[in-house]
């Protein structure tokens, strides 16, 4: 049997770090000892919800999956500020006055839609000057953090029982919900702390497909995990795919230049700069790549599947490889 590769979806319990979950999965893997295990996006210890475990070669999909949109159920306790931004931290300030009403909260939330700058929390895994922020925080040091551009696609109030505000948030990569809680509290003038966090979606994967850690550990012991494994190909089925000719696949993976002549089919609307899958003619996922900007758009070209207007020039490279997922030797052709 070939080395396992794919995704396992687990509903991370609270109290464990994402890395703890990875360690347990690695230890538990029966019949596939030594398989690499990773995850596609950290959840704080106090958070629960969807954690994507990556096995074997699928660990290379981490970056791609981290770019996916995520959905969270977040509860924010208004009126309280902690050093970590969540309920596990030390209370810095407790607001004594009245807590804003629903209308004021709705107005303040408007400022947290679309793209904006966010200063990451001091207690986070980011590095400043080569040091992890949480290591600095642990020795009581606070350093200036550069604001980062983040994106909120959707933010809606699920319930508001003052001071507890329950939100559904759909956001892009790098978003810290703890910082959102603190910033929203600041905007309302009372402070805020993330009271609970649950991740309910990452890209195409909803929490409904995830299983509790205890069930996953049982599946790892019994071997039933293999049936739950999501193949890398299926995991990224929502990402546009470009199929390269059999004759070219190996050369491509060896890093040789690819022209449009080597492409057998491609999606009609290929957005330059977007992530694409590179497939062989059997539909096997070979690599993740980034579509390139067209030097001259609208060149007509004929392919096996018919004629289409190419989004970029025939002479230029259609994409740039980012991650190769199979060994060149495993691919036919020469």
């Amino acid at each position, binding site marked *: 049997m070939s080395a396992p590769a794919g995704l396992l979806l687990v509903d991370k319990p609270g*109290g464990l770090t994402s890395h703890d979950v990875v360690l347990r999965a690695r230890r538990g893997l029966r019949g596939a000892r030594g398989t690499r295990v990773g995850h596609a996006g950290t959840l704080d210890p106090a958070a629960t919800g969807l954690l994507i475990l990556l096995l074997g070669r699928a660990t290379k999909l981490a970056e791609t999956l981290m770019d996916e949109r995520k959905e969270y159920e977040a509860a924010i306790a208004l009126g309280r500020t902690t050093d970590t931004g969540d309920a596990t931290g030390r209370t810095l300030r407790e607001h004594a006055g009245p807590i804003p009403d629903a209308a004021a909260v709705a107005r303040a939330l408007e400022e947290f839609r679309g793209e904006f700058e966010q200063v990451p929390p001091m207690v986070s895994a980011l590095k400043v000057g080569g040091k992890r922020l949480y290591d600095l925080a642990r020795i009581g040091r606070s350093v200036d953090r550069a604001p980062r551009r983040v994106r909120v696609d959707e933010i809606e109030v699920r319930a508001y029982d003052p001071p507890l505000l329950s939100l559904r948030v759909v956001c892009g990569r790098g978003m810290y919900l703890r910082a959102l809680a603190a910033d929203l509290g600041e905007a309302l003038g009372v402070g805020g702390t993330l009271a*609970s966090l649950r991740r309910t979606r990452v890209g195409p994967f909803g929490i409904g497909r995830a299983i509790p850690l205890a069930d996953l550990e049982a599946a790892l012991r019994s071997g039933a995990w293999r049936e739950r494994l999501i193949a890398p190909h299926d995991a990224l089925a929502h990402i546009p795919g470009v199929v390269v000719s059999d004759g070219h696949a190996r050369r491509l993976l060896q890093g040789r230049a690819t022209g449009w002549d080597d492409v057998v089919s491609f999606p009609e609307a290929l957005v330059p700069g977007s992530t694409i899958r590179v497939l062989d003619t059997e539909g096997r996922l070979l690599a993740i790549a980034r579509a390139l900007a067209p030097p001259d758009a609208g060149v007509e070209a004929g392919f096996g599947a018919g004629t289409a207007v190419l989004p970029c020039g025939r002479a230029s490279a259609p994409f740039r490889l980012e991650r190769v997922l199979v060994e060149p030797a495993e691919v036919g052709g020469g």
Partner: protein
Amino acid sequence: MEILQGFDQRLGRIAVTLGSFDGVHVGHQRLLARLFAMARGHGARSAVLTFDPHPRAVITPGKEPPLLTTAPEREALLADAGVDLLVRLRFDASLADTEAADFIVMKVLPLGEVVGFVVGYDFHFGKRRGGNTALLRALGKEHGFLVEEVGEQAIGPVAVKSTRVRDAVARGDLAAAASLLGRPHLVSGRVVPGAGRGRELGFRTANVEIANPAKLLPPEGVYAVRVGGVARDGTPFEAGGVANLGVRPTFGGGPRVLEVHVLGGERDLYEGEMTVRFIERLREERRFESPSALAAQIGEDVARARAVLARGERA
């Protein structure tokens, strides 16, 4: 609220708190608010695990404190608060002998997929109260669940503890009891036949049976009360009232009875269920020279009760 009995349950995803919750006072309410937040935040249902009988009744029999709330009263208050699941656990010698970690791992965690625990600031559990929040946190790290500790709740300078509430009720300080409970002290019971004395005096009374001898009541006397319940014909009602809590020497050591004159019209309450909330103590129980002197005093009590209750409504 769903009520379940025993450890043999498959409750699905739950956020858990454990305790006797006697009184369901302000401190308990704050703890429950955190439990609901945890449950809602992590896609779970809220579950309260209570023990029956009170652990102290098993460990140190005869030394258990009087009850601010009987089991049915407590369950009604927990349901009103919004608890999803109430699990009644039998506290017996074998459970009292279970080590703290075993209790959590072998007994509680198998109840369902436990996302976390919300506990009070002085939480202890297991054999000889050997487990505390630190142990629970360590187990959480091992088994994957959250632990939230709720700080000591204070109303002004007074910490809310069941013992303080009991003291306030026992000395008849109902305003202090109400501020610690977040509601008036109450008693619920079945309406039973009385001696008919009230009717003879022109003040018909409903007699509420206090079936549980451990139930804590304020001192004997006359009280302004609010009552609620279901009349004999099944219609729900809410009204003010005057209650006499007294000794009924003719009945010897039988169940205590609370006589309530319900204000605002006649209702047939016999055999219905009634909840009596103590608002204010009007006077102590007294002997009267004649039935007419007693009737005159009751008339005065009714007028004072109306004034007390009207004040409460404006506030």
